[in-house]
């Protein structure tokens, strides 16, 4: 099993930390992992993306060219990464701010209204773990929920562990929230 994921959106949306949780979850499950971010000034308010690979085997290239899953969180990323999903792959996106919805017919497309849900709950910080829950729902075979919870814990500094219950709750919310677009 090898899962190659691209997560892309605005800097500040928690793109990189979502990738980090997935990478940690992979480690908890004794998988090989890589986490390759875009870096530089674009991180400060511009677009940010991270490639995460989780595999049973040693990972050759941490740089991908097409992905099993794309998690897309803004329009620029949709324009850039919709075409990089492997045929038969998965594209998950938050419709908030999306003006051109994905058009491909050879991949499975899901929406998750995580921005709306997080703001309804008054906690923008759980946005990325809501998205994570959605991903886990449609891709249950990559990492187990227990390892994801352990991954969230490992990815956070000890002083932030008080947010663990809220994040675990957000994962469950995300699992409920994800759906096929109408």
């Amino acid at each position, binding site marked *: 099993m090898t899962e190659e994921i691209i997560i892309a959106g605005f800097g500040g949306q928690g793109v990189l930390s979502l990738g980090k949780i997935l990478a940690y979850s992979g480690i908890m499950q004794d998988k090989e992992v890589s986490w*390759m971010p875009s870096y*530089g000034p674009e991180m400060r308010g511009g677009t940010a993306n991270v490639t995460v690979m989780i595999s049973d085997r040693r990972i050759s290239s941490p740089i991908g060219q097409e992905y099993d899953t794309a998690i897309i969180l803004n329009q620029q990323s949709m324009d850039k990464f919709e075409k990089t999903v492997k045929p038969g792959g998965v594209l998950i996106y938050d419709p908030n701010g999306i003006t051109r919805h994905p058009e491909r017919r050879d991949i499975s497309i899901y929406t998750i209204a995580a921005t709306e849900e997080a703001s309804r709950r008054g906690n923008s910080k759980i946005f990325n773990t809501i998205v994570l829950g959605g991903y886990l729902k449609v891709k249950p075979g990559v990492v187990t929920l227990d390892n994801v919870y352990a991954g969230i814990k490992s990815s956070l500094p000890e002083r932030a562990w008080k947010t663990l219950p809220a994040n675990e709750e957000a994962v469950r919310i995300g699992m409920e929230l994800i759906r096929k677009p109408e």
Partner: protein
Amino acid sequence: MKDVKLMKGNEAIALGAVNAGCDGYFGYPITPQSEIIETLMEMKPWETTGMAVLQAESEIASINMVYGAAAMGKKAMTTSSSPGISLCSEGLSYIAGAELPCVVVNVQRGGPGLGTIQPAQADYAQAVKAPGHGDFNLIVLAPNSVQEMYDHVFLAYELAFKYRNPAMILTDGVIGQMMEKLVVDEAKPRMTEEFIRENYGSWALVGNKGVVTSLELEASRQEKVNERIQAKYKALKENEVRVEMTDCDDAEFVIVAFGSSARIAAKSVEILRAEGIKAGLLRPITLFPFPDKQLQDLAAKGVKGFLVAELNAGQMVKDVRLAVNGARPVEYYGRMGGMIYSPGEIAEALKEKLIEKTK
């Protein structure tokens, strides 16, 4: 006790420095390697191992602080990225001339000039041919994973002290910024004063009224210094070449790539093999000394051609051609300016430049 962590390559360098018993780190922030000094400052090793960590006012100051610390027989280190490494040239030359060990890390970005902060391998020639003025070379290691970023700090110190020569870890923004699993072995304690006196007292400043200098006004004596330095490089070539070969046993076409390029090219080999093409990968782990012999052996064994993939305008390809010496075609494929090739691009280049041509 082994401990598994998820870490950036840059953070692994920092942890590697502390665990390898580094005595002094001197550095100046520059993207994409600032995590190294940031991690060290957060770790506060001066409270645990006693290692000094200092943010210098420039890369010029950093490398000269390294020179001072190295003169004391201590394990000294600086890290930077391409433009900052250019500023270290003078100091590296003095350190090599004074025959001192130290470790320097270059997390490369694209150039020339201020260039880009995106990854490149454009400093290959600088690292292996002309890191500064005068006849000298660095020992150059090229890690291709977060684990090797950590392990190579240990290896770099081992070789630097064995040969009394500065060692460089030549990496780039890909390996520096990416996170992977890191297995951390037990830390080495810092060297004691007694250890330094016993083992390095012949050249280090241990209170025996020693002189550390790269100055020799008498030309005939300077030539002797040069000969001694060159003899070390010969010994390095004979004893310290490290190389990783993947799928080379039956390979008809071999990709030669180092560092991040070797990771991408490993995938290219998988793609080519899936298409029925007998491709292999030779990854130099030491760029200086260079694996001339391993390349010659492959050429003699019936490899039909080599493709050198590198993130520059074609620098290492010249060394591969020198090694293969016309026996087989050696082609180049590269990207520049911070652009990275995909595994598929390299595979296509191999087919176009080698297979089409040798048909």
